[in-house]
């Protein structure tokens, strides 16, 4: 093990890795990609090279194999990204000749730098690690940017919708929806313009949609802020744990160890965040705001569809509601028919049989059958004694066996009582 982590050329190691990766994947694909390893980093292999590789995992299917491989590729890409950033960090320390300084101050600096980058599309080591797990990969979406896109979908749809409407595709609108520099006064004035004429309702609906979209954007920003704070807390935890390890003379042996430690810190921070009252309120506010935007959009879409005589969501809902009502009525009728057919009291008989079984009647029957068999054996057995002696023994044996069945016979009593109670 090299005791001086800053003394070697990390970047040349990184280049070696690129070469190795290229060789490995060339073998797998039997293809002749050239210069892939010479690009900035091995991630380019995944980003560019894999796009053109026809294989079952790249097909637009959602099979478990395809999904898992996609996840694995994503994890690999981010693992490599983490590697690159680790190398950069250590290389930077090496070039600055920082071995003479306390490593703790360097670590502190790196952590502080990473924390300052949250919300700015961080490409730092910890930004890279953050994208490896967590919100970025939820539901197979791959990266933080994808997650953001998912949550921002209503806003994007709104921009598209309004962009197609000449009346609203002006610069102010675009700036407004893109989060541009629009003063509150301008905004307020714009949203309070009363609707006039034939399109009055439509205009009001669009204004309402804009207001809802802005509310959603605000709620989404609040949500992002909370999640960023959580990530920062994870960094603080990581910082603390690394310092503790250093103080205890322990060290991380592999990149994977570093990653696992990072995951633990994030899970701990995330658990504390998502179980807080604040998160619950902000998350609910964001989801509720998102739904209001979507509902507004659906209503406007319905108006547009109705205008061209196409079926609307409202009409489809109405049809589906009727289907459900009809299903229920059919089901009720079937139940009535079933009951009528079963008026021969077979259900009652089954209930009684059920009770009898529960009370051990089956066992009683078995014992009776056994008894009969024994009796038959005794009666058919060859006799050597005189007729009177034989008859006496038979009677004694019968008495004994019948005596043994006394318990089941007693157990049958409740059956009779239950039947009497039912008036049967």
């Amino acid at each position, binding site marked *: 093990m090299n005791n001086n982590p800053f003394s070697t050329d990390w970047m040349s190691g990184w280049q070696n890795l690129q070469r190795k990766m290229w060789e490995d994947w060339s073998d797998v694909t039997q293809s002749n990609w050239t210069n892939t390893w010479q690009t900035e980093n091995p991630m380019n292999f995944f980003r560019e090279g894999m796009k053109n590789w026809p294989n079952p995992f790249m097909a637009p299917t959602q099979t478990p194999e395809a999904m898992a491989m996609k996840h694995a590729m994503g994890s690999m890409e981010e693992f490599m990204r983490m590697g690159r950033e680790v190398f950069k960090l*250590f290389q930077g320390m090496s070039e600055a000749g920082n071995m003479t300084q306390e490593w703790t101050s360097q670590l502190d600096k790196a952590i502080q730098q990473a924390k300052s980058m949250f919300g700015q599309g961080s490409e730092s080591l910890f930004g890279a690690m953050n994208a490896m797990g*967590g919100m970025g990969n939820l539901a197979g979406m791959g990266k933080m940017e994808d997650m953001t896109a998912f949550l921002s979908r209503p806003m994007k749809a709104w921009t598209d919708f309004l962009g197609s409407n000449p009346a609203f595709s002006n610069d102010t609108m675009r700036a407004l929806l893109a989060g541009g520099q629009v003063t509150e006064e301008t905004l307020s004035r714009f949203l309070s313009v009363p609707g006039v004429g034939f399109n009055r309702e439509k205009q009001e609906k669009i204004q309402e949609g804009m207001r809802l979209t802005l509310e959603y954007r605000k709620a989404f920003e609040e949500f992002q802020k909370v999640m960023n704070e959580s990530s920062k807390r994870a960094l603080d935890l990581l910082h603390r744990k690394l310092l503790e390890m250093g103080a205890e003379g322990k060290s991380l042996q592999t990149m994977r160890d570093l990653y696992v430690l990072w*995951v633990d810190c994030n899970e701990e921070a995330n658990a504390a965040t998502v179980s807080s009252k604040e998160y619950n309120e902000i998350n609910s506010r964001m989801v*509720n705001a998102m739904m*209001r935007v979507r509902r507004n959009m659906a209503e406007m879409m319905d108006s547009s569809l109705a205008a061209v005589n196409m079926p609307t969501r409202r009409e489809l809902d109405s049809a589906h509601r009727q289907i459900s009502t009809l299903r229920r009525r059919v089901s009720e009728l079937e139940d009535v028919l079933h009951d009528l057919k079963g008026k021969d009291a077979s259900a009652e008989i*089954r209930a009684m*049989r059920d009770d009898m079984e529960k009370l051990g009647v089956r066992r009683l029957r078995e014992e009776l059958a056994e008894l009969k068999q024994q009796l038959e054996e005794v009666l058919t057995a060859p006799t050597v004694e005189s007729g009177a002696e034989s008859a006496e023994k038979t009677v004694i044996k019968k008495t004994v066996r019948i005596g043994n069945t006394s318990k089941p016979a007693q157990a049958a009593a409740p059956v009779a009582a239950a039947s009497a109670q039912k008036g049967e």
Partner: protein
Amino acid sequence: MFPFAINPEKAVEELARFNQKLAAGVKTFTEVGPIESGISAKEAVFRDDKVTLYHYIPRVDNPHRVPVLVVYALVNRPYMTDIQEDRSMIRGLLDEGMDVYLIDWGYPDASDRFLGLDDYINGYIKHCVDFIRTRHDIYRVNVLGICQGGAFSLCFTSLHPDRVRNLVTMVTPVDFHTPDNLLSMWVRDLDIDLLVDTLGNIPGDMLNLTFLSMNPYRLTGQKYLDMVDLLDDKVKLKNFLRMEKWIFDSPDQAGEAFRQFAKDFFQKNGLIKGNVKIGERRVDLANITMPVLNVYATKDHLVPPDASKALKQYVGSSDYQEVAFNGGHIGVYVSGRSQKEIPPAIANWLKERG
């Protein structure tokens, strides 16, 4: 001491080795073959709209006289209970001599948006139970409800006690407002009416997103790095993919049923307060007077133990027992230990009660 014993050579070697494993794993992926949904032999014996009632082929000559009907949750698919040869609660019950039926809810689509809990409980479950009663010429069946299916089973049993001989609940939420119930907390301030009125059916992906948010870094990142270690073993990879398939095989939720479940159970905690109405009738857990076996998992993060154990104080049964499984919400069906503990415990308990 500097806490990183990672030098460039070692790091490069590690990353390269990882990369090699992934590259080599591509071949294993192509050799795994189709991922089955459920492994025990079964036949569809009854259909009602999109719902299918399956009967598992018994594995003993004379199975127990009273069949068990497994009622699974609407969330995710029921083949979790029969996921692989050596990880199957169904197989365990069959091997213990039980005669097993299972309700498969299917995949609701837009035409099912207005299905409510009344349709599920007084409709589908009741029809399945009645089918079994007629088929076996018996009056009452054993019901085994799992998770949300357990809550449905409690409602059904409360409303139709004459049809249930013994009730088994597994990882079933009863008290939805225990302090450690994260899901319930998240749902508490959501505008459920707005959600359902806007989306209609609730997308399965949205629920997945919610579940994954509980452990996002492990479930969406670390898990897949760990998977790379399995890539040289076809059997292990296939088992991983089976679970993966199940996790993301999430049907949409019928809108009205979701609305009622989220509001009455999660938000109002109506099951223990006696406020839940299914159809025209109120669910009273005190009506459940038949024997009850309540199986819960001590490390369940979705249905905390206290949420399940609350059942004891609300059921009317004098024959109530609990089984605590030392594991999580999924481990209770699929872990190696659960195979040895859970099916025998359930089967023996049922056999003792006729």
